[in-house]
Each structure stands twice: as structure tokens, then as C-alpha cells.
């Protein structure tokens, strides 16, 4: 990989972007788990038993990983979690988009009332954003990869 892609300053910038995004995404959800449970349920991908535990733990995981990325502590572990979460979010959005099922992303808390077309458009935008964030995660993982002896 070219050297500038792994430059420490670029990694710092990427960490800050990912960290701020995840902290901002976590806070409204921590404040209102019932809304998140409802949002996750709308995706119709999570079994009923896992729904509420997921709505309760997910925002805290996002907050912890966001803070770790911002602070530069356990960066690789946090990036792995963030990558796994983004991958799951992207898949969930993609599956529902493929089925033309307009839902609220629930990514940054609850959104106001919108038409079905607006929701589908927002889902496409959210999917693109998640894929972009996944690229950032890949940069952090590459930059923090254990060096071969």
C-alpha cells in the first residue's frame, strides 16, 4: 500500500472522523432504547428474542468504540467492532432496499415523519455513508496491522 495511505496523520484524521461519528450516533440511542428497539424491529432481520438486548447494548458499544478511537486507546479492537457494526448496518440497509421496504435508518436516533420515497432515498444515502465509513475502518486496520517479525 502506498505510504501516504498509512501516514500517521491520515490515521489520526480517520480515527477522529470515525470516533466523532460513532459517539454522535450512540448518544441519542443511549437516551432512548425503546425507539431503537422499534427501529431495529422495522428492519425485520433480528429475531424477537435478540431485539431488546441488541437495542440496549449496541449504543453503548458504539459509544465505547467511538471514545476508544478518539482517545487512541485499543484502536485496532475498536476499529474491528466498528467495522463489524458497519458491515451489519450496510447489509441490513441493503436487504431492505432490495425489498423496497422503506424504513427509518435509526442510525442517529429517530427521524421525523417522511414519505416512503424520502425514506428510500435516505436509505440509499445511509448505505453509501456506511460503505464510505467502512473504507475508513479499512485504513485504520491497515495502519494498525501487527508488524511481521
Amino acid at each position, binding site marked *: 500500500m502506498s505510504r501516504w495511505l498509512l501516514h500517521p496523520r491520515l490515521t489520526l484524521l480517520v480515527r477522529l472522523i470515525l470516533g466523532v461519528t460513532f459517539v454522535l450516533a450512540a448518544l441519542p440511542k443511549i437516551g432512548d*432504547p*425503546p425507539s431503537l428497539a422499534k427501529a431495529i424491529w422495522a428492519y*425485520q432481520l433480528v429475531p424477537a*428474542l435478540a431485539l*431488546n438486548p441488541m437495542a*440496549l447494548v449496541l449504543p*453503548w458499544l458504539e459509544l465505547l468504540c467511538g471514545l476508544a478511537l478518539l482517545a487512541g486507546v485499543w484502536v*485496532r479492537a475498536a476499529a474491528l*467492532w466498528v467495522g463489524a457494526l458497519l458491515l451489519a448496518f450496510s447489509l441490513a440497509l441493503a436487504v431492505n432496499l432490495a425489498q423496497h421496504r422503506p424504513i427509518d435508518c435509526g442510525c442517529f436516533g429517530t427521524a421525523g415523519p417522511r414519505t416512503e420515497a424520502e425514506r428510500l432515498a435516505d436509505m440509499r444515502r445511509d448505505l453509501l455513508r456506511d460503505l464510505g465509513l467502512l473504507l475508513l475502518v479499512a485504513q485504520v486496520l491497515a495502519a494498525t496491522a501487527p508488524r511481521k517479525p
Partner: protein
Amino acid sequence: MRPPWHSTTFRVLTLGAIALLTAVIANRVAAPSRRLAWRSALVLSPSPANPPGVPEHPEQPIPQRSPSGPEPSPQGTKSAAPAPPAKPTPTPAPAQPAPTPAPITEISSQEAWQAFQAGLPFLDARRSGEYTEGHLPGAWNTPVWEADLDDQLLDFKAQRRPGAGDAIVIYCSGGDCRDSQLLAEKLLAQGYFHLLIYREGYPDWVARRHPVEKGGR
């Protein structure tokens, strides 16, 4: 050998464990309206049992009570006239079989207004915050996504004492809101079989300038 806390796997698992622990603590100290039961009290169907705009059941008549007007107080009076029994009557088979009344039926705005005037009990399935901002007068707040749903339902049953066949009207915020359906499915599982969903819900009620009430439970 590296200490275990230097391993990425250890750190990944630790982050997950801390998130779980903080979630447990935060949910315990959260206000009731922000609390979520770890195990859902709802009957969560995997797909919409009743897709928007497609009434799947034949309409069940709204029982009319003697014209006593709206009932401002939730206490006291027993539920309205009993619903027709769900079991098919053993009459000789007619030429066209009568449709079996469906336990969960959608009702129109007009029918909801009639039900309100007849003094039927209304359950508000929306979040408690929305209920506080405004609700149908005398409606019970039974927010399906909040942890104290079962307590609220017990409260409703204790005060109103609805029979299994008594009509209960459920509403939420209209549009694609499915909270009423979820609550109806829960009540159905508890044995109630005359559940009327006011699909257009609270926004429609307000738009029609029907009376509303503000304030918490």
C-alpha cells in the same frame, strides 16, 4: 509471551463486555419511559400481519351503548355492551356462510368517533411522551415499546375490568405505525377477541378537531 491484554481478541471481547455491563446498569437506572425490558413483552411477528391499506378482516360491528355520551372518567363504569360471541352460532348452515368476526379489526375515523361516544375503552399504544403531549380523553397509556407495558395493562384491566369479548379500541400515530397492531396481538394472546384498531390514529383525531386531553397518566 505477551500479556493477554495486548491481544486484539482480548480487547474486542473486553469492549463487548464493558458495553454489556454499562447497558445493564444504564437500563436499571433509566426512567420508566426510557427503560426497555431485556425480554420483549410483545408478540413480535416477523412480517407485517396486516399490510398498510389492506383490511384483511370483515368489519365487526361496534357495539353501541345507550346514548350516555363520552365518558370522561376512566374509572367506574363497566365496559360497553358485550360483543357478539366469537364462536359461530350453531344455526343451520345458511346459503352463504356468515363471516366469522375477526378478533382484530380496523375501524374508520367515523367508527372510532362512534366508539368514543359509546364510551368504549381506548388504549394509546404510542410512547408515554407522546401521550403526555395529547391523547384521546380517557384513553389509557399502554406504550408497547416501554418496559412497564405489562403494568399499564394490568392497571387498565384492574380499573376497567374488560370482559374477553368486550370491544377495546387501540390507536397509535397513524400512517405506517404498527404499534396498535402489536398491542392488539398481545391482547389477543391474553384472550381478548374484540380488538378494534383505529388505524388513522391520533393525528386523524386531532385533524377532525375531536376533543383531546393533555398530561401524563
